[in-house]
């Protein structure tokens, strides 16, 4: 495939689209699909055929505001319809070329206006199973440009210049990681994409893999060229069957078009990608555990150093980046590192995709420039907490993150600011909680998660999380004492400072952050046996003695 051939494909795809007067895009991402988008699309196709109008009905990836689904967008007018039912298909097609169907129309200007779409630029605009759709929107142009015009060092430089930091949560500078792998000695190197989105409440990576799979593959291929790798793996959760199938199709299409394989674009560059399935282990998001899992072993982490950059998969230098990190690469190559660098805040550049969920009006995927205030995300883009209830906290970073209270909402979102608040950026889950959530209960929920997801290799994480769970259970059932609270805090410190990997080191964060901002709730449970949210039933009261006997 040469650049000319690529442009020809893009041209043909555009000409194909010009044959139609209207495009009806149906979001078929998981959330909309769960509300009947599949049947809706079939009905729209039928209605379009019956109408005699020149209409193209297209299946797309996530359009964003999932709580409004099933979503349909009609182009070229860009009319967005929400809560569309199968029965609405005829009306939508019937109104094409006339006034939109008013009752279905949704006005989400405030929701969209604050967003900047880089990673999600194609989401809702392309059919994820059609490589032509991706190519028509500048897909694979970056890869071929890199192969023709740039040196591997030049690519690393551009990524470094962009200021991009790892989107998996840690925020390690991507350019630095690439240059380390590029400098590592080895005739065989690997590029791995971490698609093990195990963080409950986060689905950005799923949406990208399902809605725009070629973007991930292109990013990986550019990375492989930059660091000198010839083989790649995408590690995807088995819980994401659609992502697996979309990626499989995308890989096959990319190979068929000569965008993967040997001598890509008649250059000496060889690269191909294999999919590896996860099997339900949160810890495999940790890079050394992920490597063990790809090697077919138990996903237990290893002490670092050595880092995967020097000794990773089968002992070879290995570059591991998250889905969203790779998804940023093609636009950075196309638009330049400076373009990316100019977006965002001082030390966190570019945009970040968040999965906004919980007690909020507009749930779904949003992409915002770094530095935007949390309040803007929650109140403007998210539409705030539905009426009748009061905002209590927003949880970021999943089981490794923390709960941020109302008074911190005016702080801009960045890796460093979130860390300072006792949470982390994480992969991008953002769960809004209102006054019906009990913070002790939430902390217990996350510790239970970490306890069952702990691999069991190191003692502090294995036994420490289990003990923390016992103590939190005592507090939330009304049998906790102030001594239990003191012990809990001591355990937090030991688990955080002595655990082997990131899972254990961050496991106490949900407890520490709720203790920091909502200590009163803990004290109420212990001293007054009261749960202000009414979540904890205090069923343990009166059984303290029994507990002591069995303990």
């Amino acid at each position: 495939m040469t650049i000319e051939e690529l442009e020809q494909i893009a041209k043909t795809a555009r000409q194909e689209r010009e044959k139609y007067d209207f495009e009806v895009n149906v979001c078929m991402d998981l959330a909309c699909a769960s509300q009947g988008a599949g049947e809706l699309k079939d009905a729209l196709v039928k209605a379009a055929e019956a109408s005699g109008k020149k209409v193209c009905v297209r299946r797309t990836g996530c359009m964003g505001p999932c709580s409004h689904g099933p979503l349909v967008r009609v182009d070229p007018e860009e009319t967005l319809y929400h809560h569309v039912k199968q029965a609405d298909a005829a009306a939508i097609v019937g109104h094409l070329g006339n006034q939109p169907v008013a009752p279905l129309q949704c006005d989400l200007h405030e929701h969209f206006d604050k967003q900047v779409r880089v990673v999600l630029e194609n989401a809702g605009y392309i059919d994820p199973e059609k490589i032509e759709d991706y190519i028509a929107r500048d897909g694979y142009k970056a890869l071929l440009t890199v192969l023709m015009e740039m040196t591997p060092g030049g690519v690393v430089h551009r990524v470094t210049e962009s200021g991009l930091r790892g989107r998996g949560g840690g925020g390690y500078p991507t350019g630095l990681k690439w240059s380390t792998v590029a400098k590592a000695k080895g005739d065989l190197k690997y590029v791995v994409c971490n698609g093990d989105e195990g963080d409950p409440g986060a689905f950005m990576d799923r949406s990208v893999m399902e809605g725009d799979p070629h973007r991930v593959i292109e990013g990986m291929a550019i990375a492989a060229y930059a660091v000198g790798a010839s083989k790649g793996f995408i590690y995807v959760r088995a819980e994401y069957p659609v992502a697996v199938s979309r990626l499989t199709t995308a890989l096959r299409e990319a190979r068929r078009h000569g965008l993967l394989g040997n001598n890509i674009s008649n250059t000496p560059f060889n690269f191909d990608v294999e999919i590896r399935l996860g099997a339900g282990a949160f810890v495999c998001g940790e890079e050394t555990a992920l490597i063990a899992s790809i090697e077919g072993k138990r996903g237990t982490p290893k002490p670092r150093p050595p880092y995967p950059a020097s000794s990773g998969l089968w002992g070879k230098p290995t570059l591991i980046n998250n889905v969203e990190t790779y998804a940023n690469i093609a636009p950075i190559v196309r638009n330049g590192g400076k373009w990316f660098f100019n977006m965002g805040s001082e030390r966190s550049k570019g945009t970040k995709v968040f999965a906004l969920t919980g007690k909020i009006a507009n749930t779904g995927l949003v992409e915002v420039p770094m530095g935007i205030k949390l309040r803007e995300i929650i109140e403007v883009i998210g539409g705030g907490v539905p009426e009748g209830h009061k905002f209590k906290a927003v949880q970021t970073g999943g089981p490794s993150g923390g709960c941020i209270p109302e008074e911190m909402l005016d702080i801009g979102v960045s890796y460093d600011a979130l860390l300072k608040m006792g949470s982390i950026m994480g992969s991008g889950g953002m769960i809004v909680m209102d006054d019906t959530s009990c913070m002790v209960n939430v902390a217990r929920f996350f510790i239970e998660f970490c306890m069952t997801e702990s691999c069991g290799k190191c003692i502090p994480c294995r036994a420490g999380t289990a003990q923390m769970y016992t103590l939190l259970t005592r507090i939330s059932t009304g049998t906790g004492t102030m001594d239990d609270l003191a012990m809990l805090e001591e355990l937090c410190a030991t688990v955080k400072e002595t655990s082997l990997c990131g899972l254990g080191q961050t496991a106490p964060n949900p407890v520490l952050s709720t203790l920091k901002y909502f200590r009163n709730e803990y004290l109420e449970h212990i001293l007054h046996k009261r749960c202000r949210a009414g979540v904890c039933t205090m069923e343990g009261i009166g059984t303290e003695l029994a507990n002591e006997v069995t303990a």
Partner: protein
Amino acid sequence: MPAFTPPPLPSEDKRWKIVNGTMRKNGFARHALIEALHTVQSSFGYLDDDSIRFVALSLRVPLSQAYGVATFYHYFTLKPPGKHTCTICAGTACYIKGADKLIAAAEKRLGIKQGQTTPDGEISLMTARCVGACSRAPVVLYDGQVRGEMTGEQMLRQLEGWASQ
């Protein structure tokens, strides 16, 4: 040393050929263990000693290591699933929106705990660690079909539907 010959297929059952196919595709390399176990589970519904032994011997992975892997990953199950499976997502967003109440209601209705199958082998009750449909929480999967914004009533109706079949 003579070349390695993989063990014979455990039985005439055609599904073993599918499992063997996955291993052959990976050159019977040890690192194909998880891939092969996935194929066993998708073909047979679960893993048992015979299938783990067959895969382990074919890939020359020590038995204890293969069993260690099969029990490390929660996606793998060592018990045969029921005819129908009701999976309640217990991710954070679902939890905040009352997944724990759904789980309690389903446990009460079916008379089993999560992770178990009804004695008649009809319905398995499972929980999932987030299926990524958080914006439609709480989410329940009926035989793999994702359904969002589930109420206890809707869920019980589905369970009744299965039970009355």
